[in-house]
């Protein structure tokens, strides 16, 4: 099962290495990991997607919490959350195909951020499944390159 784990960590050198090292040393698999600043300049948020059974993920959560500069750990599983990935994707787009491609981009609420003679670069964000779907529909045109973030997430206020 996929778990999105959110860890607030102190903004100190070595924290990322500590977290990554713990995952490697304990043979936990990271599906994706995103680190970024938060509203508090002293804290960063790591959003880590882990796939594993409940027992494994429970250990991941506890082992993360045990790392001294890790301030707070939450597992969003079973909670309503907003989860988003961001992708930049360069698609080969000869003039003849552009109308079709632009329609797709429109449908996926993507944004054209760069345009060249042969390529368009699209910015698209959303749940991971939507990103995957967009990649799939672009495949026939030829994908030149993809840069993706992992998932970031926040629980819904209910």
């Amino acid at each position, binding site marked *: 099962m996929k778990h999105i784990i959110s860890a607030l960590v102190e903004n100190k050198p*070595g924290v990322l*290495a*500590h977290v990554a*090292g713990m995952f490697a040393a304990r043979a936990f698999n990271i599906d994706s990991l995103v680190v970024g600043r938060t509203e508090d300049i002293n804290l960063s948020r790591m959003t880590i997607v882990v796939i594993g059974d409940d027992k494994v993920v*429970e250990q991941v959560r506890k082992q993360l*919490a*045990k790392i*001294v500069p*890790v*301030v707070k750990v939450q597992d969003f599983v079973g909670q309503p959350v907003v989860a988003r990935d961001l992708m930049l994707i360069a698609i080969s787009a000869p003039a003849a195909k552009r109308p079709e491609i632009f329609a797709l981009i429109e449908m996926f609420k993507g944004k054209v951020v760069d345009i060249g003679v042969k390529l368009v670069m699209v910015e698209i964000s959303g749940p991971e499944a939507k990103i995957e779907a967009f990649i799939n529909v672009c495949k026939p045109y030829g994908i030149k390159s993809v840069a993706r973030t992992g998932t970031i997430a926040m629980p819904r206020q209910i």
Partner: protein
Amino acid sequence: MSSKPNSPAESAAKKKTKTKAKISAEPKSAKKPQTKQMKTGAQIIVDTLIEQGVDTMFGYLGGVVLPLFDRLYDAPINFIIPRHEQGGCHMADAYARASGKVGVVVATSGPGACNLVTGLATAMMDSIPIVALTGQVRTTLIGNDAFQEADTTGITRPVTKYNCIVKDVKDLARTIREAFHIASTGRPGPVLIDIPVDVQVEKCDTSEPAELALPGYKIKPHGNSRQISQAAAAINKSEKPVLYVGGGVISANASKELTAFAEKSHLPVTMTLLALGCYDQSKPESLDMLGMHGSAYANYAVQQADCLIAIGARFEDRVTGKIKAFAPNAKIIHIDIDPASISKNVHVDIPVVGDAKVILTELTKEVEFRQRKEWFAKIAEWKKKFPFRYDNNSSVIKPQYVVEEICRQTKGKAIIATGVGQNQMWAAQFYKCSVPRQFISSGGLGTMGFGLPAAIGAQIAMPNATVIDIDGDNSFNMTMTELSTAVQYKLPIKVCILNNGYMGMVRQWQELFYNKRYAMSHIENPEYEKLAKALGAEGFMVDKKADVAAGVKRMLDEKKPCVADFRVEPEENVWPMVPAGKGIHEMDGLDILESMA
């Protein structure tokens, strides 16, 4: 409790509480009005160490720790120079194990720091509080592959509870206070601080207080009262309970509370290697050590228990054997300060996260005495049928006999350090301990070479105690250079080598699982007697069974560090033994033990 309240270990444990109180206290300078107090980093280190109650340190010199050593030269700190940083780290570790205080070790950058790694990993696995200070190349050179530069925090991150590098002298005092706090609280462990040489030289104003800033470090000592009541109810209901005690009870200084709890609710008690001494082994309720080379009676009791109460223990594979077959009928209660150790290896029915001392006190209030006649009768039967035994009719010296004789002559009161291997298991099986902090052994990492430096560290912590390293020939070979340290500091430690000429434990596995092909497990040993004398210690050899008692006496009477080389049965095995992958009730060697009756 049975241990004398004024035994050295107990009184030191009391001192620990004092030291701890100091940790949260603000530095004295903080209370004075703001007059600038400029100090160098090195001076700040020394002053903060003293403020933390440090009076003894271990460590080795090098280029980038010279500013620090210059300040230590005049400090009221007893400084011990080992012959190798690994030795120094083990000494600090055993100093902590024997005294309950934090062990402190210093090393230079690069090779010095790298030499600490085995010692830190040993302490990490056994949850021992150490603060390690390492020098680092100057901040402007970091990352340039400078002379004697190593990524010390990178290398030691997996073997420390916490580590960091201090690049600004203003952070130094706070970071050192944090290191002591982290090392000694919660589940203890080693903490390393890497300090570039320029930070040691730089000055800063120390008149401002430097309070701990650890938002991510919280300890919950109290335990959930509902879970405590659930645990008590389960214990009260149990017909066949077993108390399974780990090293955590010693770190929590909770041996007294443990004994009171076990007595009030009338429970048999088994201990891990690290917990030996925590419960008096001369009591009939003691099941001694459990696990791979544990007692048959402990292993059978655990396997048949209907309730297993684990305290400060972590269900390690050497203890549990085949995990799926471990304590199959038992409701499992697990009390531990580290939430991550709960349900890590086995599923726990009633978890209680908290400090062993606090929780045992609470639990004792809620448990009732129960006779459990049948259960104790069963246990007595196992104890009678399968005690630890060896063939004492043999004409060669049996290693177990040497340990037994040491136990007899020291009346079970000595501090025992061990090597790793068969010697360690025989020490655990045949030296009966009665007080905590008496048995000092590398359990989790199983570090050969731990014994001698550990004996030195323990003797420094407990100057009046009899400290004996029961060692293996090959374990001793790994760090024997530290004998020279014992000589320099006039420490009357005793090294008893159970010299079988083999890496005995390895040979035992080769005998049992590799068709007696003793691949490379035999070693040509030096003449330990001569070696000891060359280093300024005393040494002698005993190769006749009839001379063992006199040999032990001579070793105990010796005032100098002393190496007694006992030439024991080369192919003796440790029994019982749970082969890898088997449940702990599936012990080999019980027939052999029975045949010696």
